[in-house]
């Protein structure tokens, strides 16, 4: 199952790149890990399906590298790239909404998968919050794409994020409530998504079965 998934994600690359990535997963020290991390970041920024899954590949490479020679070249490069993109995030958003959404999906996925001694990487906590706060701004709430991205990320890593810093989660949810209640021009889909995430967090990052029925059953349509 895991294998078929890995294969699936690799399909988007040409054969040579696939080989490179496969080698990186098995024998990281034998390949240029800077190049590998660049490939993964670049692909994540343009391919949202990939950006959702890239964390797992990264996790595997990081583990393999650490095990092999206690190295962290790959992670260092990955984080440097992420940080660079973070700095340019406003321009990215202006330029391409899709890339912006991919970036956030990717950084959240990395946050989700890469841990340091089983703890989230503290360095990423504020950047991730910054991204999510940005998605909760009025102009971003007007884009269903961004709202969707926001709630998907919160579904996946909201609970972890809150554990590391609940104050900022509170702030984020102030914005979300405001947006849900007050913002004019929101599509009903955006409102639905916001309402669901509000309920989701209020229920301790769980949806009650009735709420689940409401949001996800066919009948509700």
């Amino acid at each position, binding site marked *: 199952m895991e294998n078929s998934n890995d294969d699936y994600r690799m399909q988007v690359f040409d054969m040579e790149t696939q080989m490179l990535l496969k080698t990186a997963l098995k024998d990281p020290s034998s390949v240029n890990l800077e190049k590998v991390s660049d490939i993964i970041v670049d692909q994540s920024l343009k391919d949202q399906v990939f950006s959702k899954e890239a964390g797992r590949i990264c996790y595997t490479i990081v583990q393999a590298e650490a095990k092999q020679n206690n190295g962290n070249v790959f992670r260092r490069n990955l984080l*440097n790239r992420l940080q660079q993109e973070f700095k340019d995030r406003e321009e990215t958003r202006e330029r391409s909404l899709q890339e912006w959404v991919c970036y956030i999906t990717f950084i959240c996925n990395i946050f989700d998968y890469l841990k340091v*001694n089983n703890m989230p*990487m503290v360095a990423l906590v*504020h*950047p991730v919050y910054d991204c999510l706060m*940005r998605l909760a701004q009025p102009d971003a709430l007007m884009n269903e794409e961004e709202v969707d991205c926001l709630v998907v990320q919160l579904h996946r890593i909201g609970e972890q994020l809150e554990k590391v810093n609940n104050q900022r989660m509170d702030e984020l949810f*102030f914005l979300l409530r*405001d947006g849900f*209640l007050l913002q004019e021009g929101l599509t009903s889909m955006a409102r639905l998504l916001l309402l669901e995430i509000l309920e989701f967090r209020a229920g301790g990052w769980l949806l009650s079965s009735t709420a689940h029925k409401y949001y996800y059953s066919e009948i509700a349509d």
Partner: protein
Amino acid sequence: MSDWAGSRRGEAHSRRNKTGSCVPSRWSNGRKRTVDGTLRVGRHGDGTDPESSGYSDHRHSDSRHSIFTTPESSGPVSRCRSQTDWATQVEDDEMRMGAHRDMQRYRRRILGSEFSQRERKTSSGSSESCDSKEGENIETDEAVLLRRQKQINYGKNTLAYDRYIKEVPKHMRQPGVHPKTPNKFRKYSRRSWDQQIKLWKVKLHAWDPPVDEGQDKVLDNIDDLALDDVMDIELDFPTLSESPTTPGLSLQDEDCAGTPSKVQRMENTVDPDLA
């Protein structure tokens, strides 16, 4: 209930207006708001605000003064992450957590072994002085531990070390014959520690790959240590005492003033020679 909702909403409205009119500080505006309305304003100025400590670059990018007049902000004190990149932060965290974990693990062991020493000592009748000492023999200063770990990492990150651990399985290693990684959790003087590291590295060089010219340079550097190397071998025998089996050496805590037992044997002899 409806009262509450009403006032909330009004508040929110005014907030939104504020937000709209003042674009650059949009985010921090949202942040000022708390249930009691005051708390966050204080936080804002004190530099623990993530945006002023460098997570978000926009504040730095437009205002030179934030760069040139950082001093009074307590930001750097709370965590010194603002200066470094994410990767370095993560690596530092990793090391710090590793050190803590090691310390927990190690504390149990060292206390255990010292406990057994104490028992033995008790039987010989001079116990009281020992009671408070056990904690003091452990280096707990994080900065020191991290610095030492770094030195150890340098030593371990060599071909020689890889070859060594491959060629000599742990149970075959003999104190005094084989290199033994200095124990970073022992309290040692800086000088003693650095010396142990040096000697350890010299010993490791015996496992340098055969015809690697590059490594010889390092050896040349350390030529002057050849003598110590020899001494190290004799001196190293007391290392046995680091295993719980030979309690005798660390017993006398007259040296507990901060330069404790085990290394002393090294320092006493080696240091004068160097000096």
